[in-house]
């Protein structure tokens, strides 16, 4: 018998009235895996996170957490989840330790173990200094870390993090990523973020969503490989634009030419979408060498940012029109 994935979405759709926000989303997250959830604003990331967390129900399909159906077994499934929403859900009137105690009690942590558990998450999120402070007095960074701390309470099987590093300074971002990486070694983490570097640094796989549809899900390297067929070659060159464009498009392996404008001193900045063939660079160099003054030619590897933009731009937000 195979163990159920920590998170499984099976053809999940979400409708508000006649508007469909999420279209038949299906993917899984395994234990010991950190999956980055990428998408532009309004892509449906937060709605998907909320469905997995049980804040809102799917209109169609099933959300399973460790095999438990969110629609019929909400309380049991919720015990397995730590959730940090986009806006940390904090009670300003409470102090930090009272807040963590409340969440710990509701999560069913044994009375005798609560103090040690609070100590553990406070240390992980560097909250020891503010445990006695009232929440309304906390800075944005501390509020974000407190939100993460409550999600970590009870070491849940599944951690859902919506923009966990928003509002943190660079040092805190690094510490938070380390906490997530350590946690993700044994648990399942679904991490929604706009920071592409974060995804490259800590995620095992990346899910790209737009218009409520899953466009791709693979490892960061796998996604980059998938678009290697459209590598870029950048040039800085002194030339007459129309003649240059014609010369470049005549080269075999050049798919498109984008003359981005003057770089000063009569130089043009040019980007070419080319095939993965290494010979293309040499062919471009030969095609322009005799006619124009070539100052620079370089091949650009596909970054995750390019990959993301390629997927998102190729798939206009159909959800908005639905």
């Amino acid at each position, binding site marked *: 018998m195979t163990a159920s994935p920590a998170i499984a979405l099976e053809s999940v759709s979400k409708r508000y009235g006649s508007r469909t926000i999420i279209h038949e989303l299906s993917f899984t997250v395994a234990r010991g895996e950190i999956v980055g959830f990428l998408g532009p604003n309004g892509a449906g990331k937060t709605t998907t996170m909320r469905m997995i967390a049980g804040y809102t*129900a799917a209109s169609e399909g099933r959300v399973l957490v460790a095999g438990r159906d969110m629609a019929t077994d909400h309380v049991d499934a*919720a015990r397995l989840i730590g959730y940090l*929403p986009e806006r940390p*859900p904090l009670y300003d009137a409470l102090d930090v330790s009272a807040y963590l105690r409340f969440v710990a009690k509701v999560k*069913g942590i044994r009375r005798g173990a609560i103090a040690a558990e609070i100590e553990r998450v406070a240390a992980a999120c560097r909250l020891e200094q503010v445990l006695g402070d009232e929440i309304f007095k906390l800075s944005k960074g501390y509020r974000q870390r407190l939100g993460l701390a409550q999600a970590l309470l009870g070491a849940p099987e599944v951690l859902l993090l919506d923009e966990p590093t928003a509002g943190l300074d660079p040092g805190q971002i690094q510490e938070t990523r380390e906490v997530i990486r350590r946690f993700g070694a044994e648990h399942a983490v679904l991490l929604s973020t706009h920071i592409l570097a974060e995804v490259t640094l800590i995620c095992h796989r990346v899910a790209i969503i737009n218009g409520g549809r899953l466009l791709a899900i693979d490892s960061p390297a796998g996604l980059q490989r998938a678009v290697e067929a459209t590598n870029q070659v950048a040039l800085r060159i002194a030339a007459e634009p129309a003649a240059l464009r014609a010369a470049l498009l005549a080269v075999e392996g050049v798919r498109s030419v984008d003359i981005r404008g003057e770089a000063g001193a009569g130089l043009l900045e040019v980007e070419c979408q080319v095939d993965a063939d290494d010979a293309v660079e040499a062919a471009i160099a030969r095609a322009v060498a005799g006619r124009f003054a070539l100052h620079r030619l370089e091949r650009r590897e596909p970054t995750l940012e390019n990959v993301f933009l390629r997927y998102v731009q190729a798939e206009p937000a159909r959800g908005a029109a639905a």
Partner: protein
Amino acid sequence: MSGTLAVYQKEMATYFRSPIAYYVVAVFLLGSGYFFLYNVFLTGETAMAGTFQNMGILLVTLAPLVSMRLLAAEYSGGTAELLLTLPLTPLQIVVGKFLGALTILLLITAGTMVDLIPLYLFGTPETTTILAGYIGFVLLGAACLAVGQLFSTLTHNQIVAALLAAAVLLGFWLVGHLQAFQSSPALRGFVGYLSFSLHFTDFIQGLVRTEGVVFYLVISAIALTLSAGYLQWRR
């Protein structure tokens, strides 16, 4: 049960960090104290009947201020996203919060008992009548808070929740007056049965009738069930 208790404890910890709770307790105690002195000096009777009647009206108007924040503040503060994703059933959330509000009501009730000291010092009031009045007061308060909580569950705006609850509770308080306009005995009975004030009058007069007790408990149960049902439905 532990979930309900945790919600209740959180409610109690947050209630008295808000000025609203102090305001409601202070206004109620000042108001009931004034009515007590007025009634005792005006009638010269060592009884609480008149004071209870005034306390009832005060309760109907002030209970929405206690209940308005119960869920509306969770929505507007973004904490509903935590509360509704923790391993809690909607009923545990609703009951935990209701018990928190009920505790405020019991504190108010205990505060009004100061009035009894001069009553017993300088007169011979009927203890059973006073006891019945207090039972009615707590039952009426429970129903008012449950109805107020229902409106707090339905809206993100605390003021809207308070205004809607106050309007409905005043309606329940005053509906008994419509009896005078009904020629049909059945309608007269129905309107009288819905009246918060008519049932409360029985308690004030020392009558703890099953009908009155059941009425307030049923109103509370219906309102709490609707609140829990709405929380489930909005998922």
